[in-house]
């Protein structure tokens, strides 16, 4: 049984809406989703699992139709999807009355339900979000056992998959270890946008495209196969497929670095890592006391969403301290370094702020 697991597609999202590349990003989210559909066909997968938040917000009818059309182009795969905290099935949800084509199966209840596909000997368990926030750990108590009071009669010889969305305080907290012990052959998780293979049998596929500058690193889907010859075995693999990545890069400067040099350095780095990506650039290191880097000149160099200058003037605090041990500068360095009650970062920043001011105020 071959499957593809995606989550958090967030169709309809508009990342970086005030940036020049906003429109492209919006389209790329759809394109990426289309790509996964064609991957499903090329790989002849049996099941496309969508672990919530297919849409960024309440889907419009026409959006559902569009998606339904795309699903209808699937040649081998059945689709199992659930609503997440973004596209939750509220009072006005268009999910409720929507007629999906026969390939598509959606969980519509807010307690665990079962979908059985005898031809691939597979059962998928799951629920949907009916409200925005669910703080109850709904997955922690599910029991998939042959005997038992639960109406869910899982058969061990079948492939049992759990489709789940959550994992933080507001959105169904998940006890990973406990969930893993429930005996599912695979747990397809959604909600956390960073892909994470927790175990061969449990993974976050992450979002299909990164949606926020903090979502750095590759994004894509998980493809897997469960083999039923004898003992069930599973192989899964994360496949990166996003159009772009958010990248956080650090440019380290030194006392000799000028504005022009930094610009060239950044240009080279953007070129090397790929100009389509979106960057958060940190300037770190020690600059000449008199140089201030010109942010306005750097932003136009590429898709730069953030430029954070954390470089420090090149002070040698030990030398400053030695030379000024008996005066205010020395006393200041000493006192700040002694101040253990504050966070290190504040201390360090205070040191720079203070020394800069004190040195500037030297007569």
């Amino acid at each position, binding site marked *: 049984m071959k499957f593809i697991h995606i989550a958090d597609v967030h169709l309809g999202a*508009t990342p970086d*809406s005030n940036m020049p590349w906003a429109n492209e990003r919006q389209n790329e989210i759809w394109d990426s989703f289309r790509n996964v559909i064609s991957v499903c066909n090329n790989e002849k997968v049996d099941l496309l699992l969508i672990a919530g938040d297919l849409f*960024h*917000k*309440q889907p419009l009818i026409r959006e559902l139709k569009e998606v339904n059309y795309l699903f209808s182009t699937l040649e081998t795969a059945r689709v199992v999807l659930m609503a997440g905290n973004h596209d939750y099935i*509220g*009072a*006005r949800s268009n999910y409720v009355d929507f007629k999906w084509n026969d390939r598509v199966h959606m969980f519509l209840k807010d307690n665990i339900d079962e979908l059985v596909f005898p031809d691939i000997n597979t059962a998928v368990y799951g629920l949907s979000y009916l409200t925005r926030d669910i703080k109850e750990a709904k997955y922690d108590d599910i029991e998939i056992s042959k005997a038992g009071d639960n109406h869910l009669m899982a058969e061990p010889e079948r492939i049992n998959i759990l489709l789940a969305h959550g994992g933080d305080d507001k959105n169904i907290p998940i006890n990973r270890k406990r969930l893993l012990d429930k005996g599912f052959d695979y747990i397809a998780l959604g909600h956390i946008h960073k892909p994470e293979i927790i175990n061969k049998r449990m993974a976050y596929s992450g979002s299909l495209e990164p949606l*926020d500058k903090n979502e750095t690193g590759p994004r894509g889907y998980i493809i897997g196969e469960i083999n039923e010859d004898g003992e069930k075995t599973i192989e899964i693999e994360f496949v990166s497929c996003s159009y772009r990545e958010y990248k956080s890069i650090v440019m380290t400067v030194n006392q000799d670095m000028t504005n022009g040099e930094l610009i060239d350095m950044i240009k080279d780095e953007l070129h090397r890592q790929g100009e389509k990506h979106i960057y958060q650039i940190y300037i770190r290191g020690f600059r000449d006391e008199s140089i201030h880097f010109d942010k306005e000149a750097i932003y136009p160099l590429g898709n730069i969403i953030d430029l954070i200058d954390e470089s420090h003037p090149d002070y040698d605090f030990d030398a400053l301290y030695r*030379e*000024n041990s*008996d*005066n*205010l*500068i020395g*006393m*200041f360095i000493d*006192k*700040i370094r002694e*101040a253990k009650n*504050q966070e290190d*970062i*504040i*201390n*360090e*920043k*205070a*040191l*720079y*702020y*203070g020394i*800069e*001011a*004190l040195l*500037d*105020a*030297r*007569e």
Partner: protein
Amino acid sequence: MLITKLYVNYFGKFTGREIELKPGVNLIYGDNEAGKSTLHTFIKGMLFGIERLRGRGAASKDDIYTRYLPWAYPGAYGGQMDLMLGDRPYRLIRSFHANDKSFEIIDLITGREIKLKEGHISELIPGLNESLYRNTISIEQLRAETDAELASQVRNYITNLSIAKSREVNVEKAVRLLKEKKKDLESVPYAAQLNLLSEEIKAGEDREAKIDFLTASLKDLKNKEKYLSERISNYKSPSNQQKDKLADELPVILEKYRIYLELSKQYSQLNSQVEELRDSLIEQEKYLEDLDKKLEENMKGLGSKRFLYPALSFLIGGLSFFLTKSPIVAISATVILLIISVIILATTNKRTTAISNAEHIRASMELEHGYKQLEELSHRRKGLEDDCDGLHDTIMLFMQEFISEDELTYEAVARLKETIENKKREAARKQKEYNELLEKYRLQIEKIGWELSALEDNETELIKNKEQYEYLSQKQKENKLELDAINLALDTIQELSVTIHDSFGRQLNEEVSKIVSAITNHRYQDIKIDEKLNVKLEWNDNYILLDRLSAGTIDQVYFALRLAVSDLLLGEEPMPLILDDSFALYDDSRVKAALAKMANRSQLILFSCQTREKQLLEELGLDFNYIEL
């Protein structure tokens, strides 16, 4: 530190001049222009170098470099100075010329050069710098002309003294710089923006709830509308329509009923006619029977009359005989009567038979005619009966569609009429009601549709606001971090400067008090320098502000301050004290007191253009090294 020897090689007007200085008091005497200031500057230059000013400052009268550039050999601009630090002798060798600047320190015991990283004397003598030197070690001629100006100079001086430990740092400027930065950071109103955003988010969420509510209402209304439409169209369904049509036939039925009544009436009339006729026919038949009987009887009755009439004639004849007694009469009468009787009998018999026969024929015909008529009437009656029955059945059938009634009565028809009319009225009323309700629903649906379309962007807006809130919260956090750091720096600097000022101030008060007390012959024993740098002197249990005192006294306090500060700041390494005509405003007794006070210092270098100091030193019986320029 002791300055032991000056080698003024090429400096200002001096060339190759060597001056030896000793521990204790050195008095350098010279007229005006003799070179006292040159020597003074030389010492300072040897310690800190002389920088050539650039641009505008160059060649101005403030430009010390140019002022002391040796006239004959500018390239040789420089000199040497021997020092004693503790027990160790050093030689400072400097070349001042801008093109050939150099500074060396030689350890005179080992003969080795001391490596200097930055070429600064503080590397040899920690803490020694130009401003400290200028403010404490070297006390130049006073420039103040007025008391007020002097007082403000003192105040400035104390300001600088209180931060002298920060060397050349201007604490106020540092604080100002930090406060500017802080203000910049505080200028972004994160809290207000976040407040606004959270209000908007709250409003957005409320609107979301409203959308949910409206959507649910819309759904409900649409269901109601559908149900109602169905009911309305159900009402128009074939079966209902049939019934309606049927009901519409009421006038016809009523007309039929009217006809039915009419026909019924006719029928009963006809019926009575028939009965009448039948009765009369029975009578007629009887009559005919009688007639037949009579006829028969007549035939029999004629015999009897044949006897009757003669009998009668005889009777009458007898009677007439009896009456007339005449037999003739009686016989004649009888004969006449007999003849009449015979005649009557003969004619009557004939006539009676003829009449009877005609009557019989007439009555028979009449009867036959009556039967025919009866048949016709019965036939007509049957027709009427059938018509009535037909109408009755139709009406009853119709009636039973609406009400259950067994008999066709006027009341029943009235009830039917009323029922149908009621029904129609009810239907019309319902129809109207439904239509109104439907219209109401449609209006509401339209209204909700509008409201919803106005709220269409709410969710997007809400998500955006939430993202913005996250973003701003993060920024605020970052900003707060910077602010915390700046505040920490600020607090630390202010705290330190207060600490310095406090500890320094206390000692300063004590030291200044001692010196002033000595110089003024214990006239002023207690001097306080507060945190606002006001100097107050205690006199007769009162504290007098410094600027209330005479210029001389102010100058002495100023002088005392210098001494005190020098002792405080460079206490560990005894420093020379260089005085350049510092006693100009002092009266003799105070100069004497000051000299006495300073005589125990490790090294005192006094520049003077007056002989007063020499006399006073001699009067005091102090040893001193006298150098005349």
